[in-house]
């Protein structure tokens, strides 16, 4: 760092939404050739700050200085022109277009007579290679890929340009370890080339691995700017939360041991060679009451698709499913729910949120659906349920009537979790429930899962974080290339064990 002048200098940024002061006099400096982490709990204002910088939101007060010049971008387009490249928190691409177009949209190379499609493909290939995604067909439609691939494509788009500033808002939330490493390799090489990188993540490991410096926000206010290596994790967390976290000690404690299979009892759910043509196959699961089953695998290995089969979101066409001793075919989510199965999707934007409805309406939706339209849950009961879960999961803002689309990403996730918890299901399938959730809330949710299981609920747990899966599950089912390849009882299984299975030959 030979320059003292920051590339980006935000001073006293304030933004107010009706009823919420999302940012209150926040400063942020980004220097050339550094990775800067923006830290804070869910709803602290990280995404809002990024949107303020890139002109998505107009600021109420403060100054934005880029390369010594004061700016007020009127929109993302202007920010891009100033060579600020951004990946926003939710995957913001066009699902109807191909991967290559999504990467190059708005900056397609031209030649005489129009867009140079060959060159488009070449450039897209190049950047995909860089992220070790060379196997993807650049011409395939984005919507045919999983959310993780979509996230990677968004990243590919952002690093494809020759940017001075690269902003990544929770880019790793659905990536697995390997993908994260690949991304970090790219980030490091960009940093070494002098790009200033702003990085948001709730994974402390990642933050400590990649960042040089960090800015911490709490409740829309600046807590401070720190050098990463000078700030111990514990103090970072207490700075983010504003209090000491005793739960943090629990975080590393692996207090879950495998509950023994109760082979005497009838399994709650028994899948034998369950599968669906062109999707996943060979799913063999025996899940007993009160057990937690973790699904492990690389991204695209078919975890989500397994979950969808078990929930009836897609229909199985191979194998057999037995629920509490009777054979069943699940034709729709509705019929799965009637059997006491619940499923929280990894894709909260498209498969979870009813964006224009309030927190309360979203929260009671599944319960209301089970009760049928005729028996409306009485308003007082709705309020009481909502308040209970707002408190239990620390949903912020604690306003039942706020539209859910105005909540921060992590808080949206909490509402969706609560949606299923109130239906008190027998089997809860959680696909990336901790995605985008801050560390405090994550511990809370992990504890909650243990407690629920202890109370007799069965849980299928999917997470990109293998540690998390190992820590919580009684059993671990490993998927590879969209087939289930192993079912390990969790008695001292290590990450390496799982990795070996994934890496090993299918046989």
């Amino acid at each position, binding site marked *: 760092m030979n320059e003292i002048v920051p590339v980006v200098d935000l001073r006293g940024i304030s933004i107010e939404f009706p009823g919420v002061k999302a940012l209150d006099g926040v400063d942020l400096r980004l220097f050339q050739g550094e990775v800067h982490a923006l830290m804070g709990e869910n709803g602290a204002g990280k995404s809002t700050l990024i949107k303020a910088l890139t002109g*998505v939101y107009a600021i109420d007060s403060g100054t934005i200085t880029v390369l010594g010049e004061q700016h007020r971008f009127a*929109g*993302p*387009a202007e*920010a*891009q022109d100033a060579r600020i490249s*951004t990946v*926003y928190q939710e995957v*913001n*691409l*066009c*699902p*109807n*277009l*191909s991967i290559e*177009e999504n990467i190059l*949209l*708005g900056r*397609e190379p*031209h030649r005489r*007579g*129009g*867009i140079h499609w060959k060159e488009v493909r070449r450039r897209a290939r190049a950047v995909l290679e860089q992220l*070790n995604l060379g*196997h*993807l*067909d650049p*011409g*395939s*439609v984005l*919507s*045919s*890929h999983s959310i993780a691939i979509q996230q990677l494509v968004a990243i590919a*788009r952002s690093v494809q340009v020759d940017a001075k500033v690269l902003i990544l808002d929770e880019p790793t939330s659905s990536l697995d*370890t*390997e993908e994260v*490493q690949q991304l970090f390799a790219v980030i490091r090489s960009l940093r070494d080339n002098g790009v200033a990188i702003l990085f948001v993540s709730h994974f402390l490991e990642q933050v400590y691995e990649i960042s040089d410096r960090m800015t911490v926000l709490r409740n829309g206010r600046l807590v401070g700017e720190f050098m990463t290596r000078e700030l111990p994790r514990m103090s970072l967390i207490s700075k983010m939360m504003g209090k000491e976290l005793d739960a943090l000690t629990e975080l590393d404690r692996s207090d879950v041991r495998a509950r023994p299979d109760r082979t005497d009892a009838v399994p709650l759910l028994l899948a034998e060679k369950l599968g669906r043509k*062109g999707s996943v196959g060979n799913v063999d699961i025996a899940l007993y009451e009160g057990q937690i089953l973790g699904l492990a695998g*690389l991204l*695209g290995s078919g975890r989500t698709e397994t979950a969808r089969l078990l929930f009836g979101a897609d229909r199985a066409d191979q194998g057999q499913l037995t629920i509490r001793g009777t054979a069943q075919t699940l034709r729709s989510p509705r019929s799965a729910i009637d059997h006491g199965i619940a499923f929280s999707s990894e894709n909260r934007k498209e498969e979870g949120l009813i964006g224009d409805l309030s927190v309360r309406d979203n929260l009671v939706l599944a319960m209301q659906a089970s009760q049928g339209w005729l028996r409306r849950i009485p308003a007082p009961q709705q309020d009481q349920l909502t308040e209970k879960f707002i408190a239990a999961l620390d949903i912020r803002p604690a306003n039942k009537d706020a539209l859910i689309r105005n909540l921060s990403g992590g808080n949206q996730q909490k509402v969706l979790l609560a949606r299923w918890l109130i239906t008190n299901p027998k089997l809860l399938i959680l696909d990336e429930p901790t995605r985008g959730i801050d560390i405090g809330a994550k511990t809370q949710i992990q504890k909650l899962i243990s407690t629920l299981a202890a109370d007799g609920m069965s849980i299928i747990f999917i997470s990109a974080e293998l540690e998390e899966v190992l820590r919580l599950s009684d059993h671990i089912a490993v998927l590879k*290339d*969209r087939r289930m390849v192993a079912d390990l009882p969790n008695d001292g299984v290590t*990450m*390496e064990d799982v*990795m070996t299975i*994934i*890496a090993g030959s299918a046989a």
Partner: protein
Amino acid sequence: MSVVTRTPAPLNRTRISLLEGKARYAPTLATVGLFLAMFAAGAVMYPGFLSGQVFLNLLVDNTFLIVLAVGMTFVILTGGIDLSVGSVVALSMMIAAALLQAGWNPVAVIALVLLTGATFGLLMGLVIQVFEIQPFIVTLAGLFLARGLCYVISVDSITVTDPFFTAMAQARIPLGGRMFISPGVVIALLVVALAFYVLHQTRFGRTVYAIGGGESSALLMGLAVPRTKVLVYGISGLCSAVAGVLFSFYSLSGYSLAATGLELDAIAAVVVGGTLLTGGYGYVLGSLAGVLILGIVQTFISYEGTLSSWWTRIVIGALLLAFILLQKLFSRKVTVT
């Protein structure tokens, strides 16, 4: 943390994604296939149906609808809709007829008509964009306004006697074997080709698709969303004016009740052609096929020649339905979930 070396992607996955890439064309291909099937059916059922001229007449008689459908395709691809097109066609015809009657030069008249149409469309686009009013409503108001302006110009029909317009109306471009097309067909096909080029070879065109895929995403990707949205309505207005001129060539008159309900025909053609009304998916060539299909339905009915007025409507509805159902059947699994 150990990094696992990735095993190469299994073959079947690549195949699937390839197929899904192609699957985008399925509704459009289904439309084209169905059109051919229907033509064959007509040839079997009616003597004299299987002639090149019957096919060419589908073009000759639908030049204006083709151009309208092209404009509508742009709008629908962005997820919008333009209900004003039929009225703007009528307005263009009225303006042209009235000015020609007043002795204006035909080239000047055409230029003015095109300008009016484009401006009308742009204004609607501006209202939609700046005031954030829903396109359905703005263009519905546009429909009333344009139709109303027709009456203001004249409630009587005005005949066009201008030699240039007459020449364009009656000129026949022979294609050999007693087959012919009109100059309007050439213009309409040029418009289709131009639209195809714009949609697939220019940044503007790709932005149109992007907006249909997700407007807020497109904005966050830094695309020129507001400008594109306004322009799309401008294009539709311009196409309506071109269609109006073609209709004038076709009917050599201006009539304030002309082209009523044409907007629904245009929308139906676009949708039958495989474009999703929610935006983002579809092709102009599909819309062209859609127009031909609506046209062939009409041809069937006049060849049949025994349907009463009410059966005509019922049959049109039924054929439309049959088409959509078949198309659905053939292009299964294409719509995203």
